[in-house]
């Protein structure tokens, strides 16, 4: 080989190895996230992540779609146990105690050193921070948050002689409206008045009913539940009365098919996550109204959805990069973009001031209902061993709704089991 070509080869090799080194010098961040509402949301996430990577070329993000909230938690925990680095993930806001107990997360305060960082920590809606704070520190940052809202079919309202701009505001009003909206066809019901899903996240719906009746389901420390107080029993009795009186179908109402039922006109009203808004508006061929949930007498809804958590995994540099990712994705502009694409709420007051959300809210005022409901929002059911406690409550709710047990007995049973599960934490 001549000197020139040898020199060229050397230079090429140097450039290549520098590029390789450069690539290797990129910090890798892995995150799991769930999608729990309709739509091609993985693409939206990919777009947002791309924006971050372009603004931060030294970080490479691996965003992994993991199914629903349960699946995402299972996957993230499994990966952590197996030693695979997972620096951050979007998980259920109510997974907080479980993740803390497993000792896998660290508070965001660790990285929030500058005044801007500290301001960022305070910039979110207080109602959304309830499930993310413990021991005076912030462990969960809101990302895809929602409240339950009542979707209703304005055309059906007009047909039944109800004012489409005056949705029911109290439990009694809802029953009366539902009774007028039920349509019979021969012997069978062709349209129901209202449907509240009792699979998937039944405990979430129940949390709303309880709050509307003035009760909470657990204490702030997550160590004690209050499932069978008189007010919570009343809430369940109201729920079961809907089917008994023919306003709702008997048996379980499936979370997954509820949106389709509403869109096809099989029910005039439905309680569902605001995260479904965009998908509902797209598919419905009628005028869709969105209202805050009715109260008894004050309204209420638990917040729901997913928070970002920071995991004790990977190097400090990687975790710092993950922190930057979370800051970027929850910034007002990105939160606004996410909200428009999904129907989830903007997570900070600033996000509603961005041009994106301002113009969207002008076109689609329904999107503001969830945010306005924050004033009467309550924390979602969150305890130690949350998965187990949730299952115990859900089983009892389903047993009452399917008529196997009376509400009082069902909830008493759930409370007893929850007490047993939470005993080690009640020191």
């Amino acid at each position, binding site marked *: 080989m001549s000197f020139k070509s040898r020199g060229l080869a050397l230079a090429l090799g140097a450039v290549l190895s520098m590029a390789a080194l450069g690539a290797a010098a990129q910090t890798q961040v892995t995150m799991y996230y769930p999608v729990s509402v309709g739509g091609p949301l993985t693409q939206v996430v990919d777009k947002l992540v791309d924006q971050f990577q372009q603004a931060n070329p030294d970080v490479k993000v691996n965003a992994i779609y993991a199914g629903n909230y349960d699946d995402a938690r299972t996957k993230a925990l499994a990966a952590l146990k197996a030693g695979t680095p997972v620096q951050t993930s979007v998980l259920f806001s109510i997974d907080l105690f479980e993740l803390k107990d497993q000792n896998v997360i660290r508070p965001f305060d660790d990285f929030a050193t500058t005044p801007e960082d500290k301001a960022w920590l305070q910039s979110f809606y207080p109602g959304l921070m309830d499930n993310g704070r413990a021991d005076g520190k912030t462990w969960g940052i809101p990302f895809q948050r929602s409240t339950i809202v009542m979707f209703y079919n304005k055309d059906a309202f007009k047909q039944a002689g109800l004012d489409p701009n005056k949705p029911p505001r109290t439990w009694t009003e809802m029953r009366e409206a539902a009774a007028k909206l039920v349509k019979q066809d021969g012997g069978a019901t062709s349209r129901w008045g209202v449907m509240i899903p009792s699979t998937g996240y039944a405990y979430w719906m129940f949390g709303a009913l309880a709050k509307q009746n003035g009760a909470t389901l657990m204490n702030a420390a997550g160590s004690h539940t209050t499932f069978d107080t008189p007010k919570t029993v009343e809430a369940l009795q109201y729920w079961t009365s809907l089917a008994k009186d023919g306003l709702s*179908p008997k048996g379980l109402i499936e979370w997954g098919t509820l949106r389709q039922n509403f869109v096809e006109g099989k029910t005039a009203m439905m309680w569902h996550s605001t995260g479904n808004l965009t998908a509902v508006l797209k598919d419905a061929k009628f005028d869709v109204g969105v209202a805050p949930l009715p109260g008894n007498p004050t309204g209420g809804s638990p917040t729901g959805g997913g928070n970002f958590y920071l995991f004790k995994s990977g190097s400090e540099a990687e975790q710092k990069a993950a922190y930057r990712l979370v800051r970027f994705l929850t910034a007002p502009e990105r939160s606004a973009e996410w909200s428009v694409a999904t129907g989830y709420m903007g997570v900070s007051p600033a996000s509603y001031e961005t041009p994106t959300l301002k113009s969207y809210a002008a076109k689609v005022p329904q999107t503001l209902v969830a945010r306005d409901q924050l004033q009467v929002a309550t924390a979602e059911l969150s305890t130690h061993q949350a998965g187990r406690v949730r299952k115990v409550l859900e*089983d009892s709710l389903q047993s009452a709704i399917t008529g196997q047990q009376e509400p009082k007995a069902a909830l008493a049973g759930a409370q007893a089991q929850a007490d047993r599960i939470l005993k080690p934490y009640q020191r």
Partner: protein
Amino acid sequence: MNDIRHAMTSRSFVSRPAVHAWLMLLPALVLLAAFTYWPIAGSVWESLHTQAPGVDPMFSGADQFAALLDDPVFLQALRNNFWYALVTVPVSVMLALAMALWVNERFAGRGLLRLAFFTPTILPMVAAANVWLFFYAPDIGLFNQLLGAAGIAGRNWLGDVETVLPALMVITIWKEAGFFMIFYLAALQSISPEQRDAARIEAPSAWYRLRRVTLPLLAPTTLFVVVNALINAFKLVDHLFVLTRGGPNNASTLLLYYLYEVAFKFQDISYASALTLVLLALLALCSALQFWFSRKRVHYR
């Protein structure tokens, strides 16, 4: 001859057959040990301890098993699995036999019929479950649409405690019967023409022939198919993930699904190990039954 062979042996082979044997068996034995026997030992160990998120692990003797007996969900899963096996096994086996006898006849389109019966087996269970979700959905699902057209009120098949387990059984039978049909077909076709003719001479009545001649000859296949169906009744829970997740109120939960929930959703390894041992015991029972029956009752010509 022996001398030549001996001479060849000492030149071509490096060492004795025993060493060869162990070397050839090594991969299989290592894998079996690692993924069958070690896990069993591990489960026994774990089930004697208690650990939960936030609570340190400690030895607890038979506590996990006592908790099993106290656990309404476990007992429900056991009951469900029992009924599930009791119904799906005989029905799919009998259906498979009927299908095989039918398809064995000569008539136009029997190849297509055989194909139609066997196709559900080729689908993954999750795909089959998705298809049936379509059928079972109340209000908008197909069954209730058809029933509605006939003027009958449809039920909430998957959301009603009374109908959910039968609804799942239907899907399993639909999927498995065709699979077992193939084994019966093979057995039917291996009955030689001489036997068939001899039987026809001895006993002209078709029904009599079926009972006294065909069925006994099919006994080994029946045994094989029944045991397979029994094992599948415990092993195949994919459809629960798609359709009911064990609900409503655990009315459709099966042992293996509960095991998955406890191990991977609740992260309770100790309790999961106790459940694993229960499942193992049940499967061992099935195999023991197979072994015992194959010794006693099977009739070979």
